[in-house]
């Protein structure tokens, strides 16, 4: 073989040999270093724990003098470790509060705000963003709102999580704006809003329900149905006449979970809706709201033209077979073959349920 090739390969071999040797040594040293780094990190947290525990037990108010011995030089990463208990050292609520008070010095806050706004190191910036959520400084929401519109997906995501930590009206309105402008997944934003106190949400929920976009109204209703609060019945009822089928279906679901029996009339009207999905949803919602008392109402749909509606009626009958029995007897004595079949299947289904 040509000597030139061989010489070239040998040169490449030498480079690769050096790289492989260096990597081998690097891996071993890195493992040792990482283990010692973890040990140090753990020791530092244990030290914080000891001091914070003593501070809480002493009943002293947090002050610069009291906090200085352990809070000076604490990094945002350590702060988050304490606040989220993400490491092996556990901090209880009062210890977390005391540590937060010690950490929230004007210098630290200024540093965090600066890092959250301008840092080029993405993950340091995210640590600062998360810290701002826990500390809820006067500028937190403003900074987080700006970061929530960042082009970087991670910065956007963690800003949203951080806004969720604040749980103020201002934070809720920012999150709702993000849903309306389709900045992030509506599902994630709604799941964060779910954790906000209802009194805050009630002031902003109309903003979602009255939006022009169907998707946004739907998210609003999904949020409402999880809150399961009777006070929102009027808001959900308004959407029973929404032009979108999906919204009307979600509104029915929402009324079903509202625990407000006054919503039953609204659901009964929905059972006459032209769209099958709305009728089926109304049947399920009525069952959720009234329990076995819904049977006289839903039985009216036993001759519905839609199989899905019939399936919904059958499912409700199975769940409340005793209440449905008198109606079933009447239907079985009648001429409607389809209705008779549904009744028979409901009886079979209920028997299977009992076996189960």
């Amino acid at each position, binding site marked *: *073989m*040509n000597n030139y*090739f*061989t010489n070239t*390969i*040998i040169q*490449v*071999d030498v480079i*690769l*040999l050096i*790289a*492989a040797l260096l*990597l*081998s040594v*690097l*891996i*071993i040293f*890195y*493992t*040792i270093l*990482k*283990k010692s780094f*973890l040990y140090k990190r753990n020791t530092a947290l244990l030290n914080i724990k000891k001091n914070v525990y003593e501070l809480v037990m002493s009943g002293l108010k947090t002050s610069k003098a009291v906090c200085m011995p352990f809070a000076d030089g604490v990094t945002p990463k350590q702060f*988050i470790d304490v606040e*989220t208990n*993400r490491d092996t050292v556990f901090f209880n609520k009062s210890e977390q509060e005391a540590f937060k008070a010690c950490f929230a010095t004007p210098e630290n806050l200024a540093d965090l705000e600066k890092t959250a706004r301008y840092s080029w190191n993405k*993950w340091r910036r*995210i*640590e600062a963003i*998360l810290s701002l959520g826990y500390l809820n400084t006067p500028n937190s929401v403003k900074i987080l709102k700006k970061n929530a519109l960042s082009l970087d997906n*991670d910065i956007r*995501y*963690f800003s949203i*999580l951080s806004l*969720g*930590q604040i749980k103020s009206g201002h934070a809720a309105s920012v999150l709702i704006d993000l849903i309306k402008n389709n900045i992030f*997944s509506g*599902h*994630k934003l*709604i*799941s*964060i809003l*779910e*954790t906000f106190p209802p009194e805050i949400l009630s002031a902003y929920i109309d903003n979602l329900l009255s939006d022009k976009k169907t998707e946004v109204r739907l998210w609003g209703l999904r949020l409402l149905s*999880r809150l399961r609060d009777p006070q929102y019945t009027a808001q959900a009822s308004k959407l029973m006449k929404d032009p979108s089928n999906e919204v009307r279906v979600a509104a029915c679901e929402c009324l079903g979970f509202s625990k407000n029996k006054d919503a039953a009339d609204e659901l009964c009207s929905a059972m006459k809706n032209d769209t099958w999905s709305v009728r089926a949803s109304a049947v399920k919602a009525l069952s959720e709201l009234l329990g076995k008392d819904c049977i006289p109402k839903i039985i009216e749909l036993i001759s519905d033209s839609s199989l899905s509606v019939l399936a919904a009626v059958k499912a409700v009958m199975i769940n409340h077979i005793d209440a449905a029995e008198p109606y079933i007897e009447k239907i079985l004595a009648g001429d409607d073959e389809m209705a008779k079949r549904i009744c028979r299947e409901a009886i079979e289904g209920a028997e*299977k349920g009992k*076996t*189960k």
Partner: protein
Amino acid sequence: MTSALTNDNLNQTAFLVFFSYFVILTLYYFILAMIGLIETRKRTHESEDEKYSSLLLSSFTASVSIIIPAHNEEGWIRDCLLSVLNLNYPKFEVIVVDDCSTDATLKILGDMLKLKPINISYPKHYKDGMVREVLQSENYSLVTVISKSAAGLKKAGAVNAGLNLAKYEYICVLDADTIIEPDALIKVMAHIEKDPGHIVGAGSYFGMSNGLKIKDGRIIERSFSYKPILAYQNLEYIRSFIGNRVAWSKFNAMPNVAGGFGIWRRDLLYDLGGYSTEFTCEDVELTFRAHDYIVKKNEKQKIIMLPYYVGWTEGPSNIRSLISQRERWQRVMNETIWRYKYMILNPKFGPFAFLTLPYFLLYEVLGVFVEVASIAFVVAGWLKGVLDLRAFLSILALMILSQVVISLLCVFSFLRNNLLFSLKYVANLVALSWVELFWYRWIISISKLIGTINYFKGRKEYGQYVREKRTT
């Protein structure tokens, strides 16, 4: 003289072809390993900063149906199921499908779960064969067992039986010899929850459970096996998951959500008609089919691979078993590539067609021919005196060293983010990386060759290899 010249030219051309193949492949691996290094770091940061507590409390967190197909798993099923029941996740159900086991699998399940037959009717959308009965656990209300009465549809048929009964919006398929980590589901679902409209499939890293000390489904000591054949598999898994799949995932070109642990959105599985029972093995084919479906439906959906360790599975502990497992993998690879050949270099399929599939075709399918031909060429060249000893050794060194560098890069990526291994085990992996080409690589090549031959012979059996009983 003319003949000698022709021979020389021929040898040189052949050398250049093999050498280019090798260089391209090495560079490809190297680039993937570098992307994997960056991507793994990013994912680890994301996981560290994630707020899992709010996901655990949210009513919006998606529910998951976990399906565990089991065929003769008496040595593993109990620990697997207990590890699943230890999961830290708000809402899930477990469906164990006993695929006509001839050992004590069903008895173990019965003793553990207190099973009672239930009369239940459910739609049979997926091809699952005959189901003998459905049993409900009295001890754990979230566990259902399906007992199949006719095998023959392989693992795919068993998973399909579970799919027919599953009621939640996400499906997690788990091997019955996998020990799952308590935070596995929440870690992977946290990523899906960020964008459930677009992420339809997800997998994550898992390694070998051989050697781990396990009690009642919990790992009590992470004592990884030093047995070279197992340590090499750990090294291989790290290379495959961290070096390749995580990097492919960045470009939505991930070719395989592994059967050991994989999560799929149920509506996608419904549209796809579930797992195909016509292939030797089901996971690669399903992932390819999902890519095909996503592109044809013009959906902006993603299949992702994450670097978090989610579980540990039982690996072949001897050469014979290893060959049997890899032979099967090779067959399914060939079957899948042949079935989806139209995707290769088809612009419609984007990075999957240009980044992943050419690699699969050139390395996973045709690689075995190139390897055999290149060995034949080197030996023939050496015997004929065309290739001198110096040239031969330099090429050999190049092959060894390039593989060492890539392996070590992947090990480094892994260690940067997970400190699972002891220093001694890390040193062991480093040492093994240097000598892989001298024996382990050959076993894999031979397995691939046998797999390819069997593929052409039309063999389609699943071929379960013999596993060593786990010591607890």
